[in-house]
C-alpha cells in the first residue's frame, strides 16, 4: 500500500515536475515580457536615460537582482524588444487579408510602416539604442552574433514576399540580394524617421512611398531613365 502510494506519488510527482518545468519556462517568458512592458512604459513616461533598473524591477514586481538574470543590460532589453516586434509583425502580416492582394510596393510600405507605428511610442528609447548599435562591439549591431537569428528570420520573411512577387511576375529575379537591400533600406528609413521633425512624420511617409515606387519601377524596367 505504502509502496503503491509512493509509486503514485512518484508518478504524479514526475508529471508535476514536467508540468512545473514547462510552467517555469513559461513563467520565465512571461517575466521577460513583464519586464519589457514595465521598461517600455517607463521609457515612454520618463525617458530612456532617466529610467533606472531599480524602477523597472519595482514596476515589474521583481527583485532588482533578478532583473539582471533576464537582461544584463538595456541593450539586451532592446534586443528582446526588436525580436518581439518582428514576431508580431510577421503574425500581423500573415493575418491581414488586404496584404495578400496588395501590390509589392504597398506590402513593403505597410511592413515598414507597421514597424514605425510600433516604435513610435518609444522613439527616444529607439533613438538611444540606435546610436549604440553603431558601435562595432555592440550586441545590437546588425552584424553582431546576437542579432543574427533575428536578422535571418527577417530576411527569410522579406525573401518570401519578394519570391511571391517574382512568381507573380511583379519583379524580376532579385534573389537573396533583394532582401538584404531591403533590410538596409529599412534601417535607413528608421534613421530618417528618427530625425523627421515634420508633423505626424509625414516626410517619412512621402520618402518611403516614393523610394518604394521608384525602386519597383527601376527593378521592373531594369534601369533608371536618367
Amino acid at each position, binding site marked *: 500500500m505504502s509502496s503503491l502510494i509512493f509509486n503514485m506519488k512518484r508518478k504524479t510527482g514526475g508529471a508535476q515536475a514536467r508540468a512545473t518545468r514547462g510552467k517555469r519556462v513559461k513563467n520565465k517568458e512571461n517575466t521577460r515580457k513583464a519586464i519589457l512592458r514595465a521598461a517600455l512604459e517607463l521609457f515612454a513616461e520618463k525617458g530612456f536615460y532617466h529610467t533606472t533598473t531599480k524602477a523597472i524591477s519595482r514596476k515589474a514586481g521583481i527583485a532588482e537582482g533578478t532583473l539582471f538574470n533576464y537582461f544584463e543590460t538595456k541593450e539586451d532589453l532592446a534586443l528582446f524588444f526588436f525580436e518581439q516586434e518582428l514576431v508580431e509583425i510577421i503574425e500581423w502580416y500573415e493575418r491581414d487579408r*488586404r496584404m495578400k492582394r496588395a501590390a509589392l510596393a504597398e506590402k513593403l510600405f505597410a511592413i515598414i*510602416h507597421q514597424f514605425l507605428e510600433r516604435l513610435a511610442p518609444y522613439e527616444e528609447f529607439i533613438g538611444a539604442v540606435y546610436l549604440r548599435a553603431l558601435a562595432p562591439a555592440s550586441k545590437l549591431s546588425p552584424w553582431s552574433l546576437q542579432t543574427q537569428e533575428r536578422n535571418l528570420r527577417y530576411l527569410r520573411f522579406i525573401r518570401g514576399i519578394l519570391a511571391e512577387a517574382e512568381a507573380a511576375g511583379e519583379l524580376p529575379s532579385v534573389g537573396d540580394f533583394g532582401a538584404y537591400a531591403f533590410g538596409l533600406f529599412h534601417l535607413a528609413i528608421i534613421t530618417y524617421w528618427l530625425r523627421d521633425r515634420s508633423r*505626424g512624420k509625414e516626410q517619412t*511617409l512621402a520618402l518611403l*512611398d516614393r523610394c518604394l515606387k521608384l525602386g519597383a519601377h527601376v527593378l521592373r524596367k531594369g534601369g533608371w531613365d*536618367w
Partner: protein
Amino acid sequence: MNKSGKSGAVARGFRLGKLGLSLVGSYAGYQAQNLLFGESTRAQRQARFHQKASRRVRDELAALKGPAMKLGQLMSMQTGMLPEEALQELATLQMRAPGMHASLARAQFKSSLGKYPEEMFREFDPEPFAAASLGQVHRAVTRDGEKAAVKIQYPAIRSAIENDFKLLRSATLPGQLSGHVPAALLDEIQRGVLEETDYLREADNLEFFGKGLSGLEYVAVPRVRRELTTDRVLTMSHIEGGTLSDLLKRKPSQAFRDLLGARLIEMYETQIQRLKALHADHHPGNYLFQPDGRVGLVDFGCVKRITFDVLELRRCYRHRTWRESEASARRFLALAYGRSVPYARARKILPITEKWCDAFYPQDVTADIVIDFRGDSKLDSKLREIRQQMRKRLLQDKLIDPEFAFVIRADLGLHYLLRELGAKVNISEVWRRVAAAAAGVGPG
C-alpha cells in the same frame, strides 16, 4: 539670331523635364523653339511637340502625382499657355489620377488625425473614388450615419511644392527674362498651389460658398465636418452626381443643356458679382451634374477673391469706353491689366480687344445677348486666332496682371465647359436675374 544661347535654354528645359517637371520643362523648350524656327518648321515641330507633350504629360504627371500634377492642372486652365492637344490630355487627368495605395492613405490619415480611418468612421472605403489635385477622395460613412467624402492629401506635399518651384524658377529663368514665362504668373501659380495645400482654408471656402450660393436652389455645396477635418484631411458631406462626360453620354436634350448652361453662368456670375470670389478651377471635374438638373460644386481648394470691378469692366467692354478719350482708355487698361503696366505698352492690346468684344459683347445694347456654345467651327477658328494674338501681345508686352489672368482663366474654363455641354444661353437674362437677386428680389 543667337543660336547657342537659345539652344542652351532648350537643352536646359529638356533636362529639367527629365527631372520630373516634364511639362514645364518641355514648355520652356517649346517656347525657345518658337523663337528659333521659321513658320513651316515650326508647324511641324509644334505638332510633334503637342503629341509628345501630351503623352508625356499623361504618363509622367499621372505617375508623379503631387505638385507637378497640380501644375499641369493649373496650366491646363491656362489655355493661353498650352496647345489644345495637351489640354485635352490634361482634362482627362483631372478626375482620374493614380495616387496613394490604401496603406499610404491610412497612414497619412493617422499621421494627421491621430487615429486610423476605421477608428473614426462607421465605414471607410480604402480605395479612392476620385483623385483630388493634391490627394485623393475616399467614400465613408460617419459615426452618425452621414455619407461623406474624405479628401486625403499626399504626405509632405507642401515642401515638395516649394522645392519644385525653386527648381522651376531657376530653370525658367531665361523664359522669365524674355518675358515668355512671366514671373508674376509663376508667383500667382505658386500662391494658388500652396494655398490649396491647406484644407482648413478649403473648409472655410466651402462654408463661405455654401452660404453665398444658398439662394440658388439648384446648387449643392458639400458641408464640412469640422471634427473630422485637419489641414491635410478634409471630411465633407458627399455630393451625388456625375461628371460632364458622364452626363453627355446619356445624350441630354437641348433644352436640358440650355438649362444647365444658364445655371452654370448664373452660378459664375453670382460668384464674381455678389460673392466677389471665384470657386477657382472651373474645369469639368469640379462640377457634378445630377439628372434632375442640380449642379454640385466640389473642390474649393483654390478660391480667388476678386478686388477689381467686374461689372465696370463689362460695362467698358460693352460700350467700348476706350474709344471715348485717352483718359477712359487709361482707366479701362488699368482696370484690365493692372496699374503697373505703362499705358504706351498696354494700349497695343486695344485693337485685339475690339475683336474679342465683337465676338462676345455686341454693341447693340437693345437686344439680349444670346450665345450659342455649340461648336461653330468658323467662330472657333476666329476665336482661336484672336486668342493667339492676344496671348502674343500679353506676353510680349508683359500685360499680365495676376488677378486679371486668373479671371480670364476662369472665363475660359467656363467657356470650355459650356462648349462641351453644347448649350445655348441668353446671357442678358442671366445677368438680369443675378442683378435682381443682388437687389434682394431673389432669383427667378
